[in-house]
């Protein structure tokens, strides 16, 4: 058994090294090379230029505030929502699915633009309403600020945190909480002393994934930070790659290396903090069913808070998109705007042949890519959690490598890699790039679910004569359904709207929807952009609902 686990570990390390390490090596070579293209004479000039620049450290400071606050905001909100959904008798539970999943389907650039329309200080719709209602002389809120960036980025990353914390919250051993209550602790004390500490791996996983994602986030800093002259690492790198006619990607890669070091350090911190994973096991062979906490008098007020969140997080930005897709140009809502509404943007999107090719490609990449990525994630997560060797740690770090870089940089690494292979300019290059880069979306929910499954279950299976694969199929996968569905949904929706890699790797015939989104954005065609965005949200919703329905069929009976 140990032999087969070791073999599996090394096979997975080989696969991930190929997928994830190769583009990073290309970038590393590029960061130490002179010249325009990737390989040139050795130089340290690019590192000296980046890290010797005093302004870089100011950027680093702003980045820390932006990233930490956004990730904390997402994680705390996700924890709150996951607890309400899984552990209480709050009404309207289907709303949690909507709140947790829909922001993930909205292309981030559109979400940021929507909030710009709602809260810009000149004529943001909400600001106008507040000014009118409270008779203010100035707009009370300015979305073009670090606070505005945190608010929007935090909401965008909420699904990542929720889809990691919620499955862990759902598969919870009642006996630990019951013991707490029997010992005289109330609901709040049990939550703080028992529930949350036991969820530490999931909470840390969510926080770290959100931090890594925020570090690489570009849409919010570019749409909301740039107008206010707020620069974070991602926009700093963007500036390096766009200033001048011959951008220095080696310098961008040198900057990206500090993000890589930060991300890898975070993974080791996470491994250190969850090193005694047995402490967090809550699903053993004794059966489990989470107890439902009665909210009593807090039930309705909390439900109202949920509705407000739903309105602010989902309904408002989607309404802005819908409105923008119907008016002929960017207009503040007015009688004139409503009288000019038409379906022209929708018609032009549906009759555009490249948009239709993009839709086909994005669907393929999303469905096939997420399925392959999920299968790989199951094996990688298994090794990371259950085979606690040094090589398992290497595997975990490898899985984060590509993901740790801002998309704009890793995409160049992939271009430098694929252009030396027959895969260049094919849909397969995109598929491999997507899986390699976004593998943590599949691995994180599954590792936090794996951590909670006791090895007694596998051992019992083996004692009964089952092979490793049979154990995986009959025991592990059914108990992991929530994690698998979360991972698949995260990957599928991410692949459906992926932009950074697609823009660099797409060529005629391999365009994706996000490439079209960027094209419309570059042309300033917000109406078409919004129409396409709504189509993407609708298709993503269909994928998510289908994944959940299929997942429910494979879940073990809870009684």
């Amino acid at each position, binding site marked *: 058994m140990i032999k087969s686990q070791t073999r599996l570990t090394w096979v997975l390390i080989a696969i991930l090294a190929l997928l994830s390490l190769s583009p990073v090596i290309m970038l590393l070579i590029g960061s130490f090379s002179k010249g325009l293209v990737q390989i040139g004479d050795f130089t340290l000039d690019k590192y000296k230029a980046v890290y010797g620049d005093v302004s870089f450290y100011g950027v680093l400071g702003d980045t820390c505030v932006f990233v930490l606050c956004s990730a904390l905001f997402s994680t705390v909100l996700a924890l709150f929502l996951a607890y309400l959904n899984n552990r209480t008798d709050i009404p309207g539970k289907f709303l949690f699915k909507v709140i947790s999943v829909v922001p993930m389907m909205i292309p981030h650039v559109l979400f940021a633009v929507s909030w710009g329309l709602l809260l810009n200080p000149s004529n943001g719709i909400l600001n106008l309403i507040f000014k009118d209602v409270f008779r203010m002389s100035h707009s009370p809120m300015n979305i073009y600020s670090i606070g505005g960036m945190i608010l929007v980025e935090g909401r965008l990353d909420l699904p990542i945190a929720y889809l990691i914390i919620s499955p862990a919250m759902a598969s919870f051993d009642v006996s630990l909480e019951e013991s707490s209550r029997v010992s005289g602790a109330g609901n709040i004390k049990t939550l703080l002393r028992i529930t949350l500490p036991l969820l530490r791996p999931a909470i840390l996983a969510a926080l770290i994934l959100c931090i890594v994602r925020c570090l690489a986030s570009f849409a919010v800093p570019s749409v909301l930070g740039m107008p206010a002259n707020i620069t974070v690492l991602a926009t700093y790198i963007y500036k390096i790659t766009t200033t001048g006619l011959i951008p220095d990607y080696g310098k961008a890669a040198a900057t990206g290396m500090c993000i890589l070091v930060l991300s890898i350090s975070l993974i080791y911190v996470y491994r250190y903090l969850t090193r005694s994973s047995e402490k967090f096991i809550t699903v053993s062979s004794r059966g489990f069913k989470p107890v439902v906490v009665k909210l009593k008098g807090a039930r309705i007020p909390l439900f109202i808070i949920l509705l407000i969140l739903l309105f602010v997080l989902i309904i408002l930005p989607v309404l802005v998109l819908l409105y923008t897709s119907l008016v002929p140009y960017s207009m503040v809502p007015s009688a004139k705007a409503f009288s000019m509404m038409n379906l022209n943007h929708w018609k032009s999107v549906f009759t555009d042949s490249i948009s239709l090719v993009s839709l086909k490609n994005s669907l393929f990449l999303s469905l096939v890519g997420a399925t392959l990525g999920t299968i790989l994630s199951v094996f990688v997560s298994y090794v990371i959690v259950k085979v606690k060797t040094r090589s398992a740690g290497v595997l975990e770090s490898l899985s984060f490598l590509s993901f740790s870089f801002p998309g704009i940089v890793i995409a160049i690494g992939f271009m430098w890699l694929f*252009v030396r292979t027959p895969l260049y300019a094919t849909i397969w290059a995109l598929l491999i790039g997507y899986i390699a880069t976004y593998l943590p979306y599949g691995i994180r929910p599954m590792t936090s679910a794996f951590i909670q499954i006791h090895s007694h279950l596998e051992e019992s299976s083996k004692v009964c004569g089952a092979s490793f694969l049979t154990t995986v199929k009959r025991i592990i996968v059914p108990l992991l359904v929530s994690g698998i569905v979360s991972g698949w949904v995260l990957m599928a929706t991410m692949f459906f709207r992926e932009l950074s890699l697609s823009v660099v790797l797409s060529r005629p015939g391999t365009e994706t929807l996000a490439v079209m989104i960027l094209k419309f954005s*570059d042309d300033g065609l917000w109406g078409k952009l919004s129409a396409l965005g709504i189509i993407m949200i609708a298709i993503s919703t269909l994928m998510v609902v289908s994944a959940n329905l299929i997942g429910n069929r494979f879940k073990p009976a809870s009684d």
Partner: protein
Amino acid sequence: MLFAAGGQEVKSESKTLEDKVTMYASITGIEPVIETFNSESGITAEVTRLSTANFVSTVLTEFAAGKLQADVLQAPLPVLEILKDQGVIKDYVSPIGETYPEWTRNNGGIYQFGIEYVALIYNTELVKAEDVPKRYEDICDPKWKGKIVMANPASHATTISWLVGLKENNVFGSEENWYAFLEGLAANSPMFVKSFGPTPAPIESGEMLIGISMPKYIITKAPAPLGWAHVEQPLFGSPRAIAITADSPHPNAAEAFMEFWLSDKTTGILSEQVGEYVLTPGVYPPIEGIKDADVRPIRDLSDEEIISWGAKFEKIFAAK
């Protein structure tokens, strides 16, 4: 094939044409041209849009690996000149290109066909006629504070070149006046966006009232309430150019496409439907007053100059 150029018919050499041609282009909104070419030639033209910033690196990476997909390249002139120096451009003599003014066809295989002209664009419903700037420096008036949108002058190559172009063409009479213009503009705290593309939206919606942008949006964003300020000074912009790649996978189709692109029909479409300022004599975009505007190309800045000026502008605008 027969094409009309400059009002006369020009015959291109008859060759067996491949069934497709691939173009890498930085220009936006060219779908009408591509549709017309596809329907008239029977060749399928495919376009990949590359931003000016990514153009050189993408093309050179593919070229170095022997995998350049493009047959035809369209980009600002300095970009194509860099690529020519690297051996990417074919020294092609275009029969139609040769009918263009002398200064547009100066360098082996690269043909200029338009100017990426820049102007002050404003919201015609929210800016009173008497407030519309009559000179560039009018935008430094404090009444425009917090009401201006522009592409980031620290990184957007075209904006950097435009600002330097104003100095080099002595638009303000002296370098001191040019600096005063920059400082006045910076003092009005303009909102920065990535490039020209996102500049019209905040003007249309009234979030901003005026911006440094392109008059072509008056056509492509119609019926948005956009107008251009008819300043007394000339309008400036980077020359737009086109060329065939040296190792074009579809060389004959590429030549046919190039001839079509430079023909009167295409420049007419670019002008009428895309709002482009083309170099075909007598052809103007249907924008009020553009026919009488003095539109001039600016000098190509080198990469080093763009980076250096970008850093200077960053300091000026950061100190606002």
